[in-house]
């Protein structure tokens, strides 16, 4: 724990650590990164994040960046977006990506799952209305496929439609020909991805350990 001595503001870290579950080393590493990104200011703006070169090849870059400024990711009750974030919020968003610990109980694991799924859901649901509509879904699929270039919008649309239909059939079951499925709510979303091992897939190891080869 030699790193502690050299990190300023260390009492804050214990708060942050409790809130987000990161360890002190992890927090200090992330703090360094935050400072680097924000050019040593206290707050981070969207432009700072957009300026990251590696992120530019990511097809859903916009959504990812947006996710950092989305208040729903800070705490479950808030809504809306902000223009700038401090380190605390940065950490909170990052904490969505922590891997579950071995020692977690079933409920904790479940809540971790929900947490991560909520994050994904928020990424889709840009208008904050609590459901993912067809338009929003289409938008996401288009973005995802945007790198390939060869596909037109129609394909993306049809894929999105098919996906919505799947959700409809999973959650709502049998549908009449005239029924219209408005959008995916969070419960449906949960149900949809119920089999999906998200706790492990959506995790990042946050220390500087080189995990290139070992996964």
């Amino acid at each position, binding site marked *: 724990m030699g790193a502690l001595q050299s990190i300023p503001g260390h009492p804050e870290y214990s708060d942050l650590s409790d809130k987000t579950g990161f360890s002190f080393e992890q927090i200090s590493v992330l703090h360094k990164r935050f400072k680097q990104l924000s050019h040593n200011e206290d707050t981070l703006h969207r432009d700072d994040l957009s300026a990251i070169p590696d992120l530019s090849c990511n097809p859903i870059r916009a*959504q990812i960046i947006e996710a950092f400024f989305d208040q729903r990711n800070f705490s479950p009750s808030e809504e809306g977006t902000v223009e700038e974030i401090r380190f605390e919020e940065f950490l909170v968003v990052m904490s969505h990506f922590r891997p579950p610990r071995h020692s977690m109980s079933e409920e904790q694991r479940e809540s971790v799952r929900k947490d991560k799924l909520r994050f994904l859901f928020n990424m889709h649901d840009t208008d904050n209305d609590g459901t993912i509509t067809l338009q929003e879904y289409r938008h*996401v699929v288009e973005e995802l496929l945007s790198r390939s270039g*060869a596909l037109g919008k129609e394909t993306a649309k049809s894929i999105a*439609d098919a996906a919505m239909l799947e959700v409809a059939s999973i959650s709502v079951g049998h549908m009449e020909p005239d029924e219209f499925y408005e959008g995916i709510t969070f419960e449906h979303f949960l149900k*949809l991805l119920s*089999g999906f091992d998200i706790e492990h897939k959506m995790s990042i190891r946050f220390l500087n350990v080189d*995990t290139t080869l070992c996964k």
Partner: protein
Amino acid sequence: CGTYRAFLLFVCCLLSQTPGSNGEVPPKPAGSVTILPPIKPIDGPQAYPEAEKASLPVFTMDYPRIQIPFEVTLWVLLASFAKIGFHVYHKITVWVPESCLLISIGLIVGAIMHSVHEEPPAVLTSNVFFLYMLPPIVLDSGYFMPTRPFFENIGTVLWFAVVGTLWNSIGIGMSLFAICQIEAFGVQDINLQENLLFATIISAVDPVAVLNVFEDVSVNEQLYIVVFGECLFNDAVTVVLYNMFTFVADMPVVEPVDVFLGVARFFVVGIGGMAFGILFGFVSAFTTRFTSKVREIEPLFIFMYSYLAYLVAELFAISSIMAIVTCSLTMKYYVEENVSQRSCTTIRHVVKMLGSISETLIFFFLGVVTITTEHEFNWGYILFTLLFAFVWRGLGVLVLTQIINPFRTIPFNLKDQFGLAYGGLRGAVSFALAFTLPDNIGRKQLFITATIAIILFTVFLQGISIRPLIEFINVRRTNRNLETINVEVHCRLMEHTVAGIEDLCGQWSHFYWKDKFLKFNTRILRKILIRDSRAESSIVALYKKLELQNAMEILDTVAGDISAAPSIVSLYDEKKNPKPKAYLAGDLRNMHDILSKNMYNIRQRTVAFTSKYSLPNDRHTKEILIRRHASIRRSLRPGSFQNSNVSKSQKYYSLPAGQSLESRFSPRRLTQTGKDCNPTRSSSSRAMMPLKRLDTLKEAVSVDMLNENKEDSGSRAGTTRSNSSSRDSRLPAPRRQLSPPREEDNGFSDNLINVHHEAEEEDHPSPSPPPAWAAEPRDNANRNPLLRRPQWNPKKT
């Protein structure tokens, strides 16, 4: 070979219709049987000085001439019959791994032979094994290795393979040496080197049976890939160690220098093997770039180059196994893009077949040899061997996992470790290595006996019990439920998010090297090695394939009478439908393909599970195509299809890089019960048809392909039904197939745009209730909105 004579006589009696006259005088070894004296040619030398005027021999027999090939063939046939036999009663293969069954059959045959005092054919020499029997097995493993999970876990795999094997060998060797010191067992003459050598032999793990069980039980991907990879690489390590120890066993005294040299040699061998493999892989990929005119011999290149890599590595006494594995890994990606669809299929089938044969033969031999050799039973030694093998493997797994877990994102829990440890069966390689021990080892028989004992023990006991155990302790399973598009989309979304966040944090991830490599790949390697490295063609091929599919559906349902089709198709008016329509199962698969191939282009999904004994699933669309080719040929108007889809630089879109997503899915029945909305998971759609459609259609139907397609997945229940039901569930397509032929393709982008335009300007039959003549899916009652109105509908309303 009395038994064979009996066979032969029987067979020959049946064949004795032909006047089998030998033109020449056959050499007369003692064994040949002639019913009539051979004729002497008029000018030829006289075999018998006292030449009576013999009459024309109507029937002669010359066994020794064909003896060896004949016996080999009979053996292979017998083993293959055994394999057929197993699958007759499906339940057996569920509980008893195939290797057990093969060994049992071998035991039975061996018993028969023993009682007739026959000797097994002495073909299992070192050369035969290492030069002919081992390469196919290794090629099989290497070729069907799921690359992405493999590379993600490569650190773990190598760790277990190399360090684990070393640990096992040295541990077991030392312990056995300690045991040897005890006088009571009477094995004091075995020195340390020989013990180590023996320990190396029996630490070669061969979890063939285990892989089958793992796959059936769907254990988590990590465990699977580590076991798979370990199996592959520890063959290499074992062979290296074996050679080293054989060499060392001769030496009276081992000095530290030798140990050091040994380590150095190990690295040379390993890395040299890989280097050779990569070299040959690239050369092979490069060669296939130019083979577009000689499609028939394309598969040959694959095999020759792999084998060449193996042999050259053997030449330099470096790890040939590593060479061939790396060669096939490197090669596969590029080759499968260059070669034609048929070649690709051929290659995969032949690789599987050869591997299967080799493995079968080896296990079979094992059974036979068990009975027929003279054993030296030294129970103390053998029992202790068993004990130590077990103990050291368990310890090894435990310790190694402890060390490597911190480096893993998904650490192995205890259950995984149990699976790893218990899954350490011994198999073919151990047997071969033991059998081909040099004769200067004093206690060779004892070693052979002990090896056989271990193999039998592990294969039978552990092999049979591993399945219930795994299920009982409930090893973490993987979820293979990825067939919904949603999950696919979200999975990708999540991956991108994770990658994005990682970039944001400035963290290295396992994507970093991969991205770098893939950028290099796209920019440089693909241009050199792939003939036609444009990616768009896959989309075009996809569209075309879909259209053909739809066309076939028309023909199918109209019972091949295309004249009726237009009128019926015109029943379908275009109706705008506000809500999302349901999609063909095939379309869904296509979407999967599109999604998986195109999302963030560089990330490729590969098949996570590969069955050791069967091919990865093949597209069943092709099966439909083949079935219907006759009707298509008959009914298609000459101009309508032919030109429109022949594009200039036709890319036979074979399996795309990174293999198909669908291969991991076992074909399942289409929602017979309507319970799940999942489309048929059978593999599919990636445009597997050659684009020169009609040319290939004129070729003979390979009904066998159809059958074998079914057979391949025969172990998975319900395949044939899935095939037919999914066919049935597709409703007739829009009539754009019958529209005037599209313009000649002048370029891919043009074509693509054309297709799009076509799609857009055509009207789509709406999802009205299907006409009476359409074959209905059986789940009529539960009309699943997803599948109710299948239409491929690129244009969204």
